């Protein structure tokens, strides 16, 4: 063998070595997947209604090439990871090797669970997950989503608040106050106002700002008015408690004290209204009925040329 031949042989060995390693790795990877795909899984799980419900949901659609059951996709193992060992034979008494499981009591780390979901959904969700409060607090996708359900409860207006309440107990309490948006009745959902997958907006709002979010449904407050009320233009939350309040209109405090937190003009705005002004006493127009709004009803702003005091 000439030195050139030796050199060529050495080069080939050097180049083929990674190939051989790769082939071995591929064999390993291949061995990890089950032999028959979903059929291997259903051989044991075919009586499980939770498992079978998958075929009524979006993940079990064969005509969708992007679905786990689309042509060429990895079926159950697209989400649960290679299941060859799990589906293989085990000795009597030996624990079956686990696959990736999605549930609150799963031993699969949250990051690993979420990585499986984000494999397909990351770009769809806009990457905000990583910087949003759910991502920061290691919330698993499966904590909210039921990927097997025909109708995922978190995607239905009537059931979504119950899903969110599982973790947001304080907000659940607030929505039970006497004056609140109709979440308890299932007529509105959290995602009407919140971007649940996270956003760079404070409190993960559905729109750019608090006001933009509120004005989706309350556009009549948007103006701009000729006579603006400064806090209204800035943040609805300065006067309102959007999750619920003891006071009508979800106001943060009872008028006139709410108004007197900012208004100190000489005369009636500065008077200490006391209980002798109730109906059994002098029946003060500053306390009863709508309090300050008996006259200053245009509290969100007025477009009347004579409306600078928000009375027209």
């Amino acid at each position, binding site marked *: 063998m000439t030195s050139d031949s030796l050199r060529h042989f050495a080069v*080939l060995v050097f180049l083929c070595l*990674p*190939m051989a390693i790769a*082939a071995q790795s*591929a064999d390993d990877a*291949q061995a990890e997947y089950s032999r028959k795909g*979903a059929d291997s899984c259903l*051989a044991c799980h075919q009586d499980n*209604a939770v498992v079978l*419900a998958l*075929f*009524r949901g979006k993940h079990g*659609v*064969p*005509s*969708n090439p*992007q*679905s786990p059951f*689309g042509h060429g996709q990895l*079926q159950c193992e697209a989400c649960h990871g290679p299941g060859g060992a799990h589906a293989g034979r085990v000795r009597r008494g030996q624990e079956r090797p686990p696959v990736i499981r999605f549930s*609150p009591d799963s031993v699969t780390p949250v990051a690993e669970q979420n990585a499986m979901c984000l494999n397909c959904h990351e770009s769809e969700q*806009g990457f905000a997950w990583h*910087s949003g409060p759910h991502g920061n607090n290691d919330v698993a996708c499966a904590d909210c989503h039921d990927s097997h359900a*025909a109708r995922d409860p978190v995607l239905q207006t009537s059931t979504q608040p119950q899903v969110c309440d599982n973790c947001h*107990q304080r907000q*659940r*309490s607030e929505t039970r106050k*006497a004056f609140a948006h109709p979440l308890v009745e299932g*007529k509105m959902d959290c995602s009407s106002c919140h971007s649940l997958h996270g956003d760079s907006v*404070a409190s993960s709002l559905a729109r*750019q700002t608090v006001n933009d979010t509120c004005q*989706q449904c309350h556009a009549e407050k*948007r*103006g*701009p*008015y*000729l006579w*603006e009320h400064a806090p209204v233009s800035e*943040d609805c939350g300065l006067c309102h408690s959007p999750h619920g309040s003891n*006071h009508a209109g979800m106001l943060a405090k009872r008028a006139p004290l709410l108004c*007197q*937190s900012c208004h100190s003009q000489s005369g009636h705005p*500065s008077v200490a209204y006391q209980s*002798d002004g*109730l*109906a*059994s006493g002098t029946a*003060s127009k500053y306390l*009863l*009925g709508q*309090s300050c709004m*008996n*006259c200053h*009803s*245009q509290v*969100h702003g007025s*477009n*009347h*040329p*004579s409306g600078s005091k928000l009375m027209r």
Partner: protein
Amino acid sequence: MNRSAALVFIISVTMSAPAAFAQTVDMSEWACEFCPFDEGQRADFEFGASSVSDDSAYFGDATGYDESGVYANVDGHGGYDSEKHRLRWTLEDLGLDSRFAELEGGRPGMFDYQLAYREMPRRQFDTTTTIFQQPAGDTLSLPSAWVRAPATSGLTALNSNLVGRNIESDRNILQIGGRYLPTRRFSVSADYRRQEQDGLKMYGGSSFTNASILPMPFDYATDEVDFGVRYSGDNSFVSLGWYLSDFENSNAALNWEQPFTTAPGAESVALAQAPDSRLQQLSLAAGYTFPQYQTVISASAAIGNIEQDAAFLDYTTNSNLTAPALSRATLDGDIDTSNFAIAITSKPFDKARVKFSYRFDERDNKTAQAQWERVIVDTFLSNDPEQNIPYSFERSLLSISGDYDLFDNLRVSAGYDRREIDRDFQEVPEQTEDTGWGQARWRPLQTLDIDVRGGTSKRDIDTYNEGIAATFDQNPLMRKYNLAYRYRQFGELKVTWSPATVPMSITLDALYADDDYTKSQLGITNGDELNVAADFSWSVSTDASIYVNVGIDQIDSEQTGSESFAAPDWRARHEDDFTTVGAGFRLQQIADKFDLQLDYTRSDGETMIDVASGGAGPDTFPDLESELDDLRLRLSYQRSEQLEINLNLRYQRFIAEDWALEGVGPGTIPVVLSLGAQPYSPERFVIGIGARYQFGSNSVTQ
């Protein structure tokens, strides 16, 4: 092929081999023979009827069950699947004013669409009475034989002309949307939503010394369009969006006749209703994942514009007054908005994660200023021209935080936020708020999670411009609470325990925040909030579960005022307490046929107000109280695989004590003609029976 070319070929094949091989799975036997793919139609309908014992605006709000009587109802959902098309539909509460219907479908992976319709009843008061008649959509008139007087005691025709008029409205929402995905990476979406809302609102209409609470008719429509284009790469995405919100009000004004004695010519007056307006917003968002250190960067930018060009009403309807010409016929309102945000998260090493985010929002109100001559409540000219104030602001939030896994079961975090707000035309042109916080998440056991967070924040201002405050005739000592210096301390605790041996979960979630406005002499001086929630749930068996939850919220604040327009001479304390308790159980498969579910909620709200003026002790108002009991029971009988029969019982009781409404009839307040709205105190039973029937052969249930 020369030697070099051969070498390059071999190297290329070699380098590409691992990727190609790693992705190869032998799927030759993956036939999916046992997969029960959905095909054909199926439907689930629930037909039923409910009997409601009593009228109640409170319980009818949002639900539509506002009147006693019998309601027929239909719910259902179903779908149709073929090889190429998928369709889902939902019906809810078809027999009620809160009905909802939705149809969604498409060819998965190619296109999808949605069509939805929802009605939302708003029921505020069913105890209101008024003298006002409504001859036209935007006009309220007095009865023909009305007698004016300076005070309600002199309105001799009041009682004989009162007519019941509920304060209620209806909102209808129509939504149509679709998405087209020509390739896996590219999508185009368009959504349209129209909301129509009409009915009556309670609205104050004032004269010089009097006011009337008016049943104001309103008729709003809002059209929204969301259009988006998105491209997704393996590690990136970019999207472009356009949002339109177009608001229209059918009534430019509310015209009404003054029921009180009034200045000559001011018998018929008008206030301006909300003007038509339009918001448009163009947004761009993008994200990229760098493989290094698992770094994710996302950014968004939006620019928008709000226009309002509704025609002004005249200064006054009083023909006896000669008001000058309006400075212009419309506001020509013009606001530019800008919103920018960027967020970067990274794991520089395995145990650490850092996050940086920055957000900027701007509202630039470019509406021109002008002089306006006010006619005070249609009675006389102020002769003191005023300028309209187009409020603008810039607001930014910078956040930096980091997590470190000190041990496998202990993560510590810390962060710093800086918020800055610059405002035009307000007392505080520049305001900053610095917040520092720390957090520890400890998992001493696999089943126990303890999360503690705490920190402080200091809101500071460059100056409180008393000159500007003076232009609003404010007391120079007043510090508006959203503009004032504030020092806040806060802490949060969350504990979750899920024993390994029992399917049980116990959680505690608590927040405490304490605010001190130490530089405020007038206005809010301090406030605090304690909010605690606790949950217990236990799956006793696969067919039985129970839960109990408790919530407590206490929000207190103190404020001062000055009747003498000098130093504080009165102090008020406002305490909001709220407690809620929920409990219930669910039993399934009783005798293989029955399911039983019970849920009970009790909520108590209480507000205590006391005001101490001068040297006197505090004057305590009667407590504002609300109590809600809500009991729901559902018994289901599975007659066959297709047929289920349901019995629903609901008991609801709400009691409110509210001194602002209680005992306040239409003529109780000497100078205000009210609608006599009374606090809610309904109690009622709802009993319903229904049958749920499942059509279609697919036996998959969930």
